[in-house]
């Protein structure tokens, strides 16, 4: 990309399809990017690592993913950079127990999906002083969690909506949210550093627009829910319910973020899911937002 034409060149942002991306859908729907003179297109992906993979593959310039996902991908893609936080939550993920489980010590099997949910499950056990080795993690994708729970194939899981309420439909009970055991997750906006180097001004403008959108989402969830329904058909009431539990706000990545990211990285290394922790000091750009966002 060329910085001279950067202002008008099309920028693709890879997103997933769930309520967490409400600010992006809203910004697109309400024409906020256009108003800022930006040519932005949203690329829907299957979600999970595919979002950031779109950046790695070069088909999108920016992506938005949870910290856990980005950290695992950074290990193999040293050019990946995280620019800013745009949401965080200690409420969005909740622990669900299956019917019949009365005590945390009865949990012998947990459903996990690669990335964030594996981390959340491990942290949950850690907080309850349960030996990680004594619990079997059953790998699955989130949509299958409720079925597993209803079948009795797993005893618990940590997940986001709608799989929490679907779990309840299958006889489960909500025990606590991740905040209750001192965990939170953040979602970052990330980019490839080669593109970023030449387009930091555009990137700054875009993140700024997302910041505006985040504010709108926080203040007027209904607008966000409507935009989301229009974009990806998620029913507005579902989005409304979900985004109430998420704090949308764009902010700089801080030293605290870096150190918690490091412990996340260590966890994945421990679990032998990645070979070596990424160079997070290098790849998480502290204070990038305040330096690059137009005033």
């Amino acid at each position, binding site marked *: 990309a060329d910085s001279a034409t950067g202002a008008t060149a099309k920028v693709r942002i890879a997103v997933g399809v769930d309520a967490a991306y409400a600010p992006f859908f809203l910004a697109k729907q309400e024409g906020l990017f256009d108003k800022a003179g930006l040519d932005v297109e949203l690329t829907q992906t299957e979600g999970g690592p595919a979002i950031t993979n779109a950046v790695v*593959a070069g088909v999108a310039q920016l992506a938005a993913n949870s910290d856990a996902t980005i950290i695992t991908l950074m290990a193999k893609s040293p050019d990946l950079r995280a620019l800013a936080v745009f949401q965080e939550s200690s409420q969005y993920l909740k622990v669900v127990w299956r019917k019949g489980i009365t005590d945390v010590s009865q949990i012998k099997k947990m459903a996990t999906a690669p990335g964030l949910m594996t981390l959340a499950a491990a942290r949950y056990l850690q907080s309850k002083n349960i030996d990680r080795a004594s619990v079997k993690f059953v790998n699955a994708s989130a949509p299958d969690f409720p079925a597993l729970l209803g079948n009795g194939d797993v005893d618990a899981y940590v997940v986001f909506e709608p799989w929490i309420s679907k779990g309840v439909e299958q006889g489960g009970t909500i025990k606590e949210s991740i905040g209750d055991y001192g965990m939170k997750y953040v979602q970052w906006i990330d980019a490839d550093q080669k593109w970023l180097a030449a387009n930091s001004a555009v990137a700054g403008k875009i993140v700024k627009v997302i910041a505006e959108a985040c504010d709108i989402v926080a203040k007027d969830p209904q607008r966000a829910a409507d935009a989301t329904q229009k974009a990806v058909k998620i029913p507005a009431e579902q989005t409304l319910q979900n985004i109430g539990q998420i704090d949308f706000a764009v902010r700089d990545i801080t030293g605290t973020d870096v150190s918690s990211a490091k412990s996340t990285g260590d966890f994945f290394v421990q679990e032998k899911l990645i070979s070596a922790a990424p160079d997070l000091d290098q790849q998480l750009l502290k204070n990038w937002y305040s330096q690059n966002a137009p005033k």
Partner: protein
Amino acid sequence: MTAVAERPVSAVPARRWRFRGVAWTVVTLAAGLAVWTAVAWWYGSALVASPAETLRAGIDLAKDGSLGESVLASTRRILLGWALGVVVGGPIGILMGRVPAIRRLLDPYIEFFRFIPPIAFVTLAIVWFGIGEMSKIVLIFYTSVFIVTINTIAGVLAIEESKLRAAASLGANRWQLLHAVVLPAAIPYIVTGARLAMGNSFLTIVSAEIVAADTGIGAMIWQSRNYGRIDWIFVGIIALGLLGFVCDRLIRIGAGRLLRRYGVKV
């Protein structure tokens, strides 16, 4: 002496079967719906959407136009990828069946790549072919071409030697042998290959539409899965099934009419 059994070995399809056929179809359909309803009732709407729920969801999606759009988009992708698979796979199969050098060259690749799930190539496909239609069509092509090729090779190998011999001694050169004898003789196999490939094209639509597909039945199924709309998943499933059914019927009717003299029986 001669046992008076139901039908001779070569039963001339009697007229009355036509009407019985319709009745059968109705009975079959009704039975299917009954089983579906029972299953849905047993497992509840969190796991299985009932026919009624599916119908309602289908009507909703049809009303806002997104169902039609999805069907259209997916059909386009499937048909293009599939057609490409047939158009490429048929000739390659014929060449591989007849020309040992080409067979030796391509066989290891085909026998390697045809076992690799398209999902493994999703990333590469978007890198190479972009996030537009192209990458989706290529992925669908990928799962159909091998089936057509292998069935065509089988067809070529099954050609009676005497036909090839006759053609050669009537003056057909290698190229003429291919298009005037080998191709027509292999057509029933190519048609079967194409029908099977159509199936695979459908199976791949979800993988293909996972990336950057805001429309399409595959994308719809995947997204609905992600936000737990079982009823929409079922609308997608039914749409794929019916669409496939219709496509297959069209191939069968078309091939049965146009290619009948090549011995196509469907």
